[in-house]
């Protein structure tokens, strides 16, 4: 209906994306509101914009890190009284979700594999293994829990994921770790919900709906590279969706909604490359690029060549004269840029197949300034201890980190056993927010602010007790263990170069996600490994037996007391024998004296 209307007006060629996901209202389809539609409203047309880019960073381990970024900006207001009904680039399914649930920010990630910070460095956008969802609601929402419950179910349908398993037992409200990333006017954490599903397995069925949200789908542009048979044959795969309101300009007069879809993948070329250290787009994705997405205002490929200024490590072909510099994660990086909107990029063969051939296997990576790991100590199924180890690799600067732990209720944390030690000394956290768990209701939430001394290892330990659950509460494979979501470490890490605080300046997408407020430091979020913890299990084959046996014992107690309470002692009179009884009976009839 609407596309028809716009065609009549002739402004632009309308591209309705993903109408099927939530569907148009029946009234619109039947044309009941046709009269409304043909009233030409003088409101200015909403401005929207789509950008796509691919960043490729050859890692020193010989792996390849490819990060796709797609950004749709739309200057509209979803919270308006009359609902937004015309969608062009912005996916309608998500737009309707935003307006229905009064969402202010929505961040969702699906990840398969664990990001190895020590081998690969920091990712552009970190995500924990499994699924992660955090949402800021508008402060007009009265029942946040109900909205959250419904929202997770809707998202579960949109992304074909088990997000419907998010309930009160794995949802927390962090007080400090997850601040809004967009425009902020209020940060009352009552409107924040955060949940992870570390057990979630990510695969094709999650990728397909994610690709459908793109304006060009997987038909054109960078998205043609996203073929699941290659993407899931990798060491790490992560796809995310971030929705937030952002400023259009420095004065922040107008706001627009930003939908950012990213997909990060690390290919292990040792196993798939038959020992040869070289890769190409075709090798990685089994496709080459032939065009940019026609709807995109910018479509670029960046290749990180910082460590390779003279081509001593690897050789890149086809060569490009375009070089760009950007400050990413506290470091100035140099990128070779391929602009897909220029026909010259595709050359004479009308297809772009980037190729990197390694020359030397040497080279060392800058150690990430902050990384963390986590493990469970102790043996047996009664108690245990969670150790979180945080490394500050900065040689002379200390910096504070916020540690967030959300532990399920069936691992009962004892907060009085919490210890934080750095360099063998106690390191008392300056801020602790602890919310104890409620059985079968909510998880533990532990947040604390710890100062990491320069060049140090800080260890946080806390003891827990494993609960015995009801037999129906165990997962189908109980002896596999129970997952505990990653700890989240958020930090402002000192930067070696001045960070760019100008948000309006044109930057590559991958370097502009976390807002940067000061020049001397940059924001990093590190996720630790999820934990797998075994719990004691009852015998699942025994419910009938246990009910019978226990009831028997209770009955023994009842029976013996009942016996003594109701009966009294009497002298036992032995019963006369049967033959004697019969004889006496006959004698009684005959009138003869009875036998004694």
């Amino acid at each position, binding site marked *: 209906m609407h596309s028809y209307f716009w065609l009549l007006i002739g402004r632009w060629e309308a591209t309705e994306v993903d109408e099927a996901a939530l569907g148009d209202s029946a009234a619109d389809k039947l044309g009941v509101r046709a009269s409304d539609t043909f009233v030409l409203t003088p409101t200015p047309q909403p401005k929207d914009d789509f950008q796509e880019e691919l960043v490729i960073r050859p890692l020193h381990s010989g792996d390849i890190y490819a990060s796709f970024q797609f950004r749709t900006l739309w200057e509209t207001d979803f919270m308006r009284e009359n609902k937004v009904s015309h969608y062009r680039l912005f996916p309608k399914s998500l737009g309707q979700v935003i307006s229905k649930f009064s969402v202010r920010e929505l961040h969702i990630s699906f990840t398969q594999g664990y990001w190895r910070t020590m081998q690969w460095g920091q990712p552009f956008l970190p995500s924990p293994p499994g699924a992660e969802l955090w949402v800021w609601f508008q402060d007009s929402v009265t029942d946040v829990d109900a909205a959250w419950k419904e929202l997770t179910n809707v998202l579960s349908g949109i992304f074909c994921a088990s997000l419907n398993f998010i309930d009160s037992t794995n949802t927390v409200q962090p007080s400090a770790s997850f601040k809004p990333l967009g425009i902020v006017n209020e940060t009352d954490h009552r409107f924040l919900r955060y949940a992870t599903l570390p057990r979630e397995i990510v695969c094709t069925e999650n990728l397909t709906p994610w690709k459908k949200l793109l304006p060009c789908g997987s038909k054109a542009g960078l998205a043609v590279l996203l073929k699941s048979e290659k993407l899931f044959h990798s060491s790490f795969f992560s796809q995310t969706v971030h929705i937030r309101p952002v400023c259009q300009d420095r004065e922040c007069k107008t706001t627009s909604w930003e939908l950012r879809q990213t997909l990060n993948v690390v290919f292990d070329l040792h196993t798939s490359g038959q020992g040869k250290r070289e890769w190409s787009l075709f090798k990685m994705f089994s496709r080459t690029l032939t065009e940019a997405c026609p709807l995109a205002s910018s479509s670029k490929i960046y290749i990180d060549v910082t460590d390779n200024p003279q081509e001593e490590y690897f050789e890149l072909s086809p060569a490009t004269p375009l070089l760009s510099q950007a400050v990413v994660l506290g470091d100035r990086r140099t990128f070779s840029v391929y602009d897909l909107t220029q026909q010259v990029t595709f050359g004479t063969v009308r297809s772009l197949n980037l190729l990197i051939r390694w020359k030397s296997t040497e080279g060392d990576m800058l150690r990430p300034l902050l990384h963390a790991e986590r493990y469970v100590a102790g043996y047996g199924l009664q108690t245990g201890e969670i150790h979180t180890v945080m490394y500050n690799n900065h040689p002379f600067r200390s910096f504070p980190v916020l540690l967030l732990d959300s532990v399920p209720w069936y691992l009962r944390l004892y907060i009085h056993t919490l210890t934080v030690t750095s360099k063998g000394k106690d390191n008392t956290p300056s801020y602790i927010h602890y919310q104890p768990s409620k059985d079968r209701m909510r998880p533990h939430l532990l947040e604390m602010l710890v100062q990491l001394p320069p060049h140090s290892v800080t260890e946080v330990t806390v003891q827990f007790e494993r609960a*015995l659950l009801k037999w129906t509460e165990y997962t189908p494979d109980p002896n596999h263990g129970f997952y505990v979501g990653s700890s989240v470490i958020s930090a402002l890490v000192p930067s070696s170069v001045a960070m760019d605080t100008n948000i309006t300046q044109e930057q590559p997408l991958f370097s502009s996600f976390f807002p940067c407020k000061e020049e001397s430091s940059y924001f990093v979020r590190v996720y630790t490994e999820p934990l797998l913890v075994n719990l004691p299990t009852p015998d699942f084959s025994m419910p009938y037996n246990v009910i019978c046996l226990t009831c028997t014992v209770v009955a023994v*107690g009842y029976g013996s007391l009942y016996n003594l309470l109701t009966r009294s002692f009497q002298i036992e009179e032995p019963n006369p024998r049967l033959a004697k009884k019969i004889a006496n009976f006959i004698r009684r009839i005959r009138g003869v004296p009875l036998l004694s």
Partner: protein
Amino acid sequence: MAAPLTLLLVVAVTIRAALYRSSLAEVIAERVEVVSPITAWKRVIEGLALLDLGVSPYSGDVFHETPLVIYLFHFLVDYAEITFMLADVISAIALYLAVKEYNKQVVRKKQKFALEADRYPQDCLELIRSPKEMLYIPLKVAMFYLLNPFTILSCVAKSTCGLNNAVISLFILTTIKGNALLSAVFLCLATYQSIYPLTLCAPAMLYLMQRQYIPVNYRRASFWWFVVQYLFMYLGSLFVLICLSFFLLGSWDYLPSVYGFILSVPDLTPNIGLFWYFFAEMFEHFRLFFLCVFQINVFFYTVPLSIKLKDHPVFLMFMQLAVISIFKSYPTVGDIALYMALLPVWSHLHRFLRNIFLVSCVLLACSVLFPVLWHLWIYAGSANSNFYYAITLLFNVAQILLVSDYFYAFLRREHHLIHGLYLKKKDGSEATLVLK
């Protein structure tokens, strides 16, 4: 008698102090047989830590003790070991004095009956204990309490069960001394701590009425007057305690967290009781039904037992304590130690006990097997939960047999006291007694 008692106390305190200093203390404090989710010292410390963090200890599901306990240890946390030793000493002395007083009354009553003559059949004299035989019973009771390994373990683990036992012992002492007000106050404290001692109301009232020569007859106004008086004192002090707890923490959160926790049994941590495995394996839609059945079990026996034993309130008290410790939702060995301490009081029943040898053997074997099977299940992984569960079943059967055996012996002795010890049939041959 003071010298042996003092010696006993010194020995008991020395053993405890030595164990506190040893590395065993930590191991014992983790034993599920010794501490329950309610009484564990680790959880009391956690409650204090939560208070320090500015979080209500009842907002989580770790701390389930009453507000008074947390305030007590707010001040005494550094002297916890002394507090728990003191609690044991107080319990032992209270039991000692209570049994001494009780024996004095038994002797007095006997003398009264002797005056009435013909009250007992001639051949029953051997059933009646002389004051000389009864001389050492109070000391034995104190010894059974203080040197019982169960009590020692419970004290070394700093299980708050020791405090509950002290309160109940003081209740027994004040009741036997005939002080209705203090009896009601201590009973209310015990109820406040764990609900179940509520059933001790009946023996306390029966005993006090007996002492004040009020006939236990519901047609008499004096009976009802006394019941109302006692209940008024009891409910009054309960009201004061509950309000005090409210004002200490400023919220009613503790009611569901303490009493709801005891009654609805959400924590299925293994213990020596019958609840944990049963409710871990329960079908969800029958859960409420069986919860009611199991909880009623504790309160259910009060009325029939009171009717049957209305002339023997102290034995009734013992029976009630045993029933509570068998059928309560989170039992520990400390609860068992309390009623076992009273066993020497009934030493004259030994000739009528039928299977005391078997029961003692089973109880001993189970006590040894608990840690063994726990280790096999939790640490070695070579056994499963059924092994430990089997032992809890056996242990509870043994306890039930022990209690019902004592009950049987008591009833039988009473029967013999009336009908003579050597019963004859009509034809003069020796008769056997049966329950009919």
